[in-house]
Protein backbone atom coordinates (compact mmCIF):
# COMPACT_ATOMS: atom_id res chain seq x y z
CA UNK A 1 0.00 0.00 0.00
CA UNK A 2 1.44 3.35 -0.97
CA UNK A 3 -0.49 5.68 1.34
CA UNK A 4 -0.33 9.41 0.81
CA UNK A 5 2.34 10.88 3.01
CA UNK A 6 2.95 14.58 3.52
CA UNK A 7 6.04 16.05 1.97
CA UNK A 8 8.76 15.75 4.65
CA UNK A 9 10.43 19.06 3.81
CA UNK A 10 7.21 20.96 4.50
CA UNK A 11 6.61 19.50 7.95
CA UNK A 12 7.45 21.51 11.03
CA UNK A 13 9.16 19.49 13.78
CA UNK A 14 8.90 20.88 17.30
CA UNK A 15 11.70 20.11 19.73
CA UNK A 16 11.08 19.18 23.34
CA UNK A 17 12.78 21.73 25.60
CA UNK A 18 15.24 20.42 28.20
CA UNK A 19 12.90 21.81 30.85
CA UNK A 20 9.92 19.69 29.73
CA UNK A 21 9.73 18.05 33.16
CA UNK A 22 9.16 21.42 34.83
CA UNK A 23 6.06 22.14 32.75
CA UNK A 24 3.68 19.74 34.43
CA UNK A 25 3.38 18.58 38.03
CA UNK A 26 3.04 14.91 37.02
CA UNK A 27 6.25 15.10 34.94
CA UNK A 28 8.05 16.75 37.86
CA UNK A 29 6.89 14.04 40.28
CA UNK A 30 8.02 11.40 37.78
CA UNK A 31 11.48 12.98 37.68
CA UNK A 32 11.57 13.05 41.50
CA UNK A 33 10.73 9.34 41.49
CA UNK A 34 13.58 8.63 39.09
CA UNK A 35 15.95 10.89 41.04
CA UNK A 36 15.11 9.10 44.29
CA UNK A 37 17.07 6.06 43.09
CA UNK A 38 20.25 8.21 42.95
CA UNK A 39 19.88 9.14 46.61
CA UNK A 40 19.16 5.54 47.58
CA UNK A 41 22.28 4.44 45.67
CA UNK A 42 24.36 7.08 47.50
CA UNK A 43 23.01 5.84 50.82
CA UNK A 44 23.95 2.26 49.91
CA UNK A 45 27.51 3.34 49.11
CA UNK A 46 27.80 5.02 52.52
CA UNK A 47 26.27 1.92 54.14
CA UNK A 48 28.75 -0.40 52.40
CA UNK A 49 31.62 1.80 53.57
CA UNK A 50 30.20 1.61 57.09
CA UNK A 51 30.09 -2.21 56.92
CA UNK A 52 33.63 -2.22 55.52
CA UNK A 53 34.78 -0.33 58.65
CA UNK A 54 33.80 -3.41 60.70
CA UNK A 55 36.67 -5.30 59.09
CA UNK A 56 39.08 -2.67 60.40
CA UNK A 57 38.13 -3.19 64.03
CA UNK A 58 35.82 -1.48 66.58
CA UNK A 59 37.78 1.79 66.78
CA UNK A 60 37.56 2.46 63.06
CA UNK A 61 33.84 1.61 63.08
CA UNK A 62 33.08 3.91 66.05
CA UNK A 63 35.11 6.74 64.50
CA UNK A 64 33.12 6.35 61.25
CA UNK A 65 29.72 6.33 62.98
CA UNK A 66 30.75 9.43 64.95
CA UNK A 67 31.53 11.12 61.66
CA UNK A 68 28.03 10.20 60.46
CA UNK A 69 26.46 11.95 63.45
CA UNK A 70 27.59 15.36 62.20
CA UNK A 71 24.78 17.74 61.11
CA UNK A 72 25.73 17.42 57.41
CA UNK A 73 25.45 13.64 57.42
CA UNK A 74 22.23 13.73 59.44
CA UNK A 75 20.75 16.10 56.85
CA UNK A 76 21.92 13.72 54.10
CA UNK A 77 20.17 10.80 55.81
CA UNK A 78 16.96 12.78 56.33
CA UNK A 79 16.91 13.67 52.61
CA UNK A 80 17.60 10.02 51.70
CA UNK A 81 14.84 8.86 54.03
CA UNK A 82 12.33 11.24 52.42
CA UNK A 83 13.29 10.04 48.94
CA UNK A 84 13.17 6.40 50.09
CA UNK A 85 9.66 6.88 51.51
CA UNK A 86 8.52 8.62 48.30
CA UNK A 87 10.10 5.90 46.15
CA UNK A 88 8.45 3.15 48.20
CA UNK A 89 5.00 4.74 47.98
CA UNK A 90 5.29 5.20 44.21
CA UNK A 91 6.51 1.59 43.98
CA UNK A 92 3.37 0.33 45.76
CA UNK A 93 1.20 2.55 43.56
CA UNK A 94 2.90 1.07 40.48
CA UNK A 95 2.50 -2.47 41.81
CA UNK A 96 -1.26 -1.97 41.99
CA UNK A 97 -1.28 -1.02 38.28
CA UNK A 98 1.01 -3.85 37.20
CA UNK A 99 -0.54 -6.67 39.19
CA UNK A 100 -4.33 -6.47 39.34
CA UNK A 101 -5.71 -8.41 42.33
CA UNK A 102 -8.94 -10.36 42.01
CA UNK A 103 -11.24 -11.61 44.73
CA UNK A 104 -13.46 -14.11 42.98
CA UNK A 105 -15.10 -12.22 40.11
CA UNK A 106 -14.33 -8.78 41.50
CA UNK A 107 -11.29 -6.66 40.85
CA UNK A 108 -9.88 -5.15 44.04
CA UNK A 109 -9.60 -1.33 43.65
CA UNK A 110 -6.04 -0.09 43.08
CA UNK A 111 -6.18 2.24 46.08
CA UNK A 112 -6.97 -0.75 48.32
CA UNK A 113 -4.02 -2.74 46.91
CA UNK A 114 -1.68 0.22 47.45
CA UNK A 115 -3.02 0.81 50.97
CA UNK A 116 -2.54 -2.88 51.89
CA UNK A 117 1.02 -2.76 50.60
CA UNK A 118 1.74 0.35 52.68
CA UNK A 119 0.21 -1.21 55.81
CA UNK A 120 2.33 -4.38 55.33
CA UNK A 121 5.41 -2.21 54.80
CA UNK A 122 4.70 -0.22 57.98
CA UNK A 123 4.21 -3.45 59.99
CA UNK A 124 7.49 -4.94 58.72
CA UNK A 125 9.35 -1.65 59.37
CA UNK A 126 7.96 -1.54 62.90
CA UNK A 127 8.96 -5.17 63.52
CA UNK A 128 12.50 -4.42 62.31
CA UNK A 129 12.67 -1.35 64.56
CA UNK A 130 11.45 -3.31 67.60
CA UNK A 131 13.96 -6.08 66.86
CA UNK A 132 16.74 -3.50 66.53
CA UNK A 133 15.84 -1.80 69.81
CA UNK A 134 15.55 -5.16 71.59
CA UNK A 135 18.95 -6.31 70.36
CA UNK A 136 20.50 -2.95 71.21
CA UNK A 137 18.99 -2.93 74.71
Amino acid at each position, binding site marked *: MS*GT*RPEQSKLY*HRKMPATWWLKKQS*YFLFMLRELSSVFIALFLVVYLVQIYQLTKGPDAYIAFTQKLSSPGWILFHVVVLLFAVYHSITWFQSSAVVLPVRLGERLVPRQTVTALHIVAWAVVSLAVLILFLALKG
Partner: protein
Amino acid sequence: MSEPTITLNVTRYRPGKDSAPTVQSYPVPYREDWVVLDALNHIKDQVDGTLSYRWSCRMGVCGSCGMMVNGVPKLTCAAFLRDYYPRPIRVEPLANFPIIRDLVIDISDFLDKLKSVKPWIIRKEEKPVTEGEYRQTPQELEAFHQFTQCINCMLCYAACPVYGLEPKFLGPAAIALGYRYNMDSRDQGKEQRAVIGNHDGIWDCTFVGECSVVCPKDVDPAAAIQRSKVDTTKNWFQSILMPWGQR
Protein backbone atom coordinates in the same frame (compact mmCIF):
# COMPACT_ATOMS: atom_id res chain seq x y z
CA MET B 1 -25.75 44.25 26.21
CA SER B 2 -22.93 42.93 24.07
CA GLU B 3 -22.50 39.19 23.74
CA PRO B 4 -19.77 37.67 25.95
CA THR B 5 -16.72 36.47 24.08
CA ILE B 6 -13.74 34.23 24.76
CA THR B 7 -10.38 34.40 23.01
CA LEU B 8 -8.83 31.43 21.29
CA ASN B 9 -5.07 31.68 20.72
CA VAL B 10 -4.58 29.29 17.86
CA THR B 11 -1.34 27.96 16.36
CA ARG B 12 -0.98 28.80 12.68
CA TYR B 13 1.57 27.25 10.36
CA ARG B 14 1.44 27.58 6.60
CA PRO B 15 3.95 25.23 4.98
CA GLY B 16 6.13 26.89 2.39
CA LYS B 17 5.25 30.35 3.75
CA ASP B 18 6.03 30.26 7.48
CA SER B 19 9.42 29.20 8.77
CA ALA B 20 7.93 28.48 12.21
CA PRO B 21 4.42 28.37 13.69
CA THR B 22 2.85 31.59 14.93
CA VAL B 23 -0.11 32.31 17.19
CA GLN B 24 -3.27 34.00 15.98
CA SER B 25 -5.94 35.29 18.37
CA TYR B 26 -9.63 34.94 17.58
CA PRO B 27 -12.38 36.35 19.80
CA VAL B 28 -15.37 34.01 19.52
CA PRO B 29 -18.84 34.18 21.06
CA TYR B 30 -18.95 32.47 24.43
CA ARG B 31 -21.70 29.90 24.74
CA GLU B 32 -22.00 27.65 27.75
CA ASP B 33 -22.77 24.58 25.69
CA TRP B 34 -19.95 25.12 23.18
CA VAL B 35 -16.84 23.02 23.11
CA VAL B 36 -13.48 24.15 21.70
CA LEU B 37 -14.32 22.40 18.43
CA ASP B 38 -17.52 24.49 18.11
CA ALA B 39 -15.41 27.61 18.56
CA LEU B 40 -12.96 26.43 15.88
CA ASN B 41 -15.85 25.67 13.54
CA HIS B 42 -17.18 29.18 14.19
CA ILE B 43 -13.80 30.66 13.24
CA LYS B 44 -13.60 28.48 10.12
CA ASP B 45 -17.17 29.30 9.00
CA GLN B 46 -17.47 32.96 10.01
CA VAL B 47 -14.05 34.51 10.53
CA ASP B 48 -11.15 32.81 8.79
CA GLY B 49 -11.72 30.02 6.31
CA THR B 50 -8.00 29.32 5.99
CA LEU B 51 -7.74 27.71 9.44
CA SER B 52 -7.04 23.98 9.13
CA TYR B 53 -7.80 21.25 11.65
CA ARG B 54 -9.21 17.73 11.73
CA TRP B 55 -12.56 16.69 13.07
CA SER B 56 -15.40 14.38 12.22
CA CYS B 57 -17.94 12.89 14.63
CA ARG B 58 -18.22 15.59 17.32
CA MET B 59 -19.02 12.91 19.89
CA GLY B 60 -15.75 11.43 21.17
CA VAL B 61 -15.81 8.39 18.92
CA CYS B 62 -13.72 9.11 15.82
CA GLY B 63 -10.60 10.35 17.62
CA SER B 64 -9.84 12.99 14.96
CA CYS B 65 -10.10 16.25 16.89
CA GLY B 66 -7.29 15.77 19.42
CA MET B 67 -5.34 18.99 20.09
CA MET B 68 -3.42 20.60 22.93
CA VAL B 69 -5.85 22.75 24.89
CA ASN B 70 -3.94 24.95 27.32
CA GLY B 71 -1.05 22.51 27.03
CA VAL B 72 -3.10 19.39 27.77
CA PRO B 73 -3.95 16.80 25.08
CA LYS B 74 -7.75 16.80 24.71
CA LEU B 75 -10.47 15.82 22.31
CA THR B 76 -11.69 19.30 21.40
CA CYS B 77 -15.22 17.95 21.02
CA ALA B 78 -15.19 17.22 24.75
CA ALA B 79 -13.38 20.33 26.01
CA PHE B 80 -16.05 22.82 27.09
CA LEU B 81 -15.40 26.55 26.84
CA ARG B 82 -17.11 26.98 30.22
CA ASP B 83 -14.21 25.13 31.89
CA TYR B 84 -11.82 27.87 30.72
CA TYR B 85 -13.98 31.01 30.55
CA PRO B 86 -13.26 33.91 30.94
CA ARG B 87 -9.55 33.27 30.40
CA PRO B 88 -8.23 32.79 26.87
CA ILE B 89 -7.71 29.27 25.55
CA ARG B 90 -4.50 28.19 23.85
CA VAL B 91 -5.14 25.70 21.06
CA GLU B 92 -2.11 23.95 19.56
CA PRO B 93 -1.54 20.87 17.42
CA LEU B 94 -0.99 17.63 19.35
CA ALA B 95 2.49 17.66 20.89
CA ASN B 96 5.26 15.30 19.77
CA PHE B 97 4.00 15.10 16.17
CA PRO B 98 5.26 17.08 13.16
CA ILE B 99 2.89 19.82 12.01
CA ILE B 100 1.54 19.64 8.46
CA ARG B 101 -0.48 22.83 8.65
CA ASP B 102 -2.04 24.88 11.49
CA LEU B 103 -3.56 22.31 13.85
CA VAL B 104 -3.10 19.33 11.53
CA ILE B 105 -0.38 16.86 12.48
CA ASP B 106 1.36 14.11 10.51
CA ILE B 107 0.05 10.80 11.82
CA SER B 108 2.04 8.51 9.48
CA ASP B 109 4.44 7.43 12.23
CA PHE B 110 1.57 6.36 14.47
CA LEU B 111 -0.15 4.48 11.66
CA ASP B 112 3.07 2.61 10.83
CA LYS B 113 3.49 1.64 14.47
CA LEU B 114 -0.13 0.62 14.82
CA LYS B 115 0.20 -1.66 11.80
CA SER B 116 3.43 -3.16 13.15
CA VAL B 117 1.65 -4.68 16.19
CA LYS B 118 -0.85 -6.45 13.89
CA PRO B 119 -3.96 -5.35 15.77
CA TRP B 120 -6.23 -8.09 14.54
CA ILE B 121 -6.95 -11.70 15.53
CA ILE B 122 -4.34 -14.05 14.13
CA ARG B 123 -5.09 -17.78 13.96
CA LYS B 124 -2.51 -20.43 13.21
CA GLU B 125 -5.17 -22.06 11.11
CA GLU B 126 -8.50 -20.46 10.27
CA LYS B 127 -11.43 -22.79 10.77
CA PRO B 128 -14.16 -22.81 8.11
CA VAL B 129 -17.08 -20.42 8.68
CA THR B 130 -19.44 -23.41 8.83
CA GLU B 131 -17.80 -24.46 12.11
CA GLY B 132 -19.10 -21.31 13.74
CA GLU B 133 -17.57 -18.50 15.71
CA TYR B 134 -14.65 -18.57 18.13
CA ARG B 135 -16.38 -18.57 21.50
CA GLN B 136 -15.25 -16.76 24.58
CA THR B 137 -16.37 -16.59 28.22
CA PRO B 138 -17.19 -13.25 29.89
CA GLN B 139 -14.03 -13.67 32.02
CA GLU B 140 -11.89 -14.14 28.90
CA LEU B 141 -13.46 -11.02 27.41
CA GLU B 142 -12.84 -9.01 30.55
CA ALA B 143 -9.09 -9.73 30.39
CA PHE B 144 -8.75 -7.31 27.46
CA HIS B 145 -12.09 -5.49 27.15
CA GLN B 146 -10.98 -2.03 28.34
CA PHE B 147 -8.19 -2.00 25.73
CA THR B 148 -10.75 -2.43 22.94
CA GLN B 149 -12.03 1.06 23.74
CA CYS B 150 -9.04 2.79 22.11
CA ILE B 151 -10.12 5.20 19.37
CA ASN B 152 -6.57 5.93 18.08
CA CYS B 153 -6.87 9.59 19.00
CA MET B 154 -3.13 9.79 19.82
CA LEU B 155 -3.64 11.93 22.93
CA CYS B 156 -1.47 9.38 24.77
CA TYR B 157 1.40 10.00 22.34
CA ALA B 158 1.10 13.74 22.90
CA ALA B 159 1.24 13.20 26.68
CA CYS B 160 4.19 10.80 26.57
CA PRO B 161 7.57 12.51 27.13
CA VAL B 162 9.34 9.28 26.15
CA TYR B 163 7.80 9.44 22.67
CA GLY B 164 8.71 13.13 22.49
CA LEU B 165 12.34 12.40 23.32
CA GLU B 166 12.63 9.03 21.57
CA PRO B 167 10.51 8.99 18.41
CA LYS B 168 11.37 5.33 17.77
CA PHE B 169 9.33 4.32 20.80
CA LEU B 170 6.37 2.20 19.72
CA GLY B 171 4.17 4.26 22.03
CA PRO B 172 1.21 3.76 24.34
CA ALA B 173 -1.74 3.12 22.02
CA ALA B 174 0.07 0.72 19.68
CA ILE B 175 1.35 -1.34 22.63
CA ALA B 176 -2.05 -1.29 24.34
CA LEU B 177 -3.69 -2.57 21.16
CA GLY B 178 -1.04 -5.24 20.66
CA TYR B 179 -1.58 -6.28 24.28
CA ARG B 180 -5.33 -6.33 23.69
CA TYR B 181 -4.89 -9.01 20.99
CA ASN B 182 -2.22 -10.90 22.96
CA MET B 183 -4.71 -11.18 25.83
CA ASP B 184 -7.56 -12.30 23.57
CA SER B 185 -8.24 -16.01 24.11
CA ARG B 186 -9.14 -16.36 20.39
CA ASP B 187 -5.77 -15.07 19.24
CA GLN B 188 -2.70 -17.20 18.46
CA GLY B 189 -0.41 -14.51 17.06
CA LYS B 190 1.69 -13.45 20.04
CA GLU B 191 4.95 -14.46 18.32
CA GLN B 192 4.09 -12.23 15.38
CA ARG B 193 3.86 -9.23 17.70
CA ALA B 194 7.46 -9.53 18.91
CA VAL B 195 7.90 -5.81 18.15
CA ILE B 196 6.13 -5.10 21.45
CA GLY B 197 8.89 -6.82 23.45
CA ASN B 198 11.74 -5.13 21.56
CA HIS B 199 13.90 -2.35 22.94
CA ASP B 200 11.83 0.29 21.16
CA GLY B 201 8.68 -1.35 22.47
CA ILE B 202 7.79 -1.78 26.12
CA TRP B 203 11.35 -1.39 27.41
CA ASP B 204 11.56 2.24 26.30
CA CYS B 205 8.68 3.09 28.63
CA THR B 206 9.72 4.59 31.97
CA PHE B 207 6.18 4.55 33.35
CA VAL B 208 5.46 8.25 33.50
CA GLY B 209 1.81 7.24 33.40
CA GLU B 210 0.42 10.35 31.67
CA CYS B 211 -0.88 8.28 28.74
CA SER B 212 -3.50 6.74 31.00
CA VAL B 213 -4.34 10.08 32.61
CA VAL B 214 -5.19 11.83 29.31
CA CYS B 215 -6.96 8.89 27.64
CA PRO B 216 -10.54 10.01 26.92
CA LYS B 217 -11.70 6.37 26.91
CA ASP B 218 -10.06 5.22 30.18
CA VAL B 219 -7.98 2.68 28.32
CA ASP B 220 -4.93 2.71 30.64
CA PRO B 221 -2.09 2.01 28.18
CA ALA B 222 0.44 2.38 31.04
CA ALA B 223 -1.01 -0.72 32.67
CA ALA B 224 -0.86 -2.63 29.35
CA ILE B 225 2.81 -1.73 28.95
CA GLN B 226 3.84 -2.63 32.50
CA ARG B 227 1.89 -5.91 32.38
CA SER B 228 3.53 -6.71 29.04
CA LYS B 229 6.91 -6.17 30.72
CA VAL B 230 5.98 -8.74 33.38
CA ASP B 231 4.69 -11.22 30.74
CA THR B 232 7.77 -10.80 28.55
CA THR B 233 10.12 -11.26 31.53
CA LYS B 234 8.23 -14.38 32.65
CA ASN B 235 8.39 -15.83 29.13
CA TRP B 236 12.11 -15.05 28.90
CA PHE B 237 12.85 -16.83 32.19
CA GLN B 238 10.69 -19.74 31.12
CA SER B 239 12.55 -20.04 27.82
CA ILE B 240 15.89 -20.04 29.68
CA LEU B 241 14.89 -22.43 32.47
CA MET B 242 12.64 -24.69 30.44
CA PRO B 243 13.73 -24.49 26.80
CA TRP B 244 11.86 -27.71 26.09
CA GLY B 245 8.60 -26.19 27.35
CA GLN B 246 8.15 -23.72 24.43
CA ARG B 247 4.61 -23.76 23.22
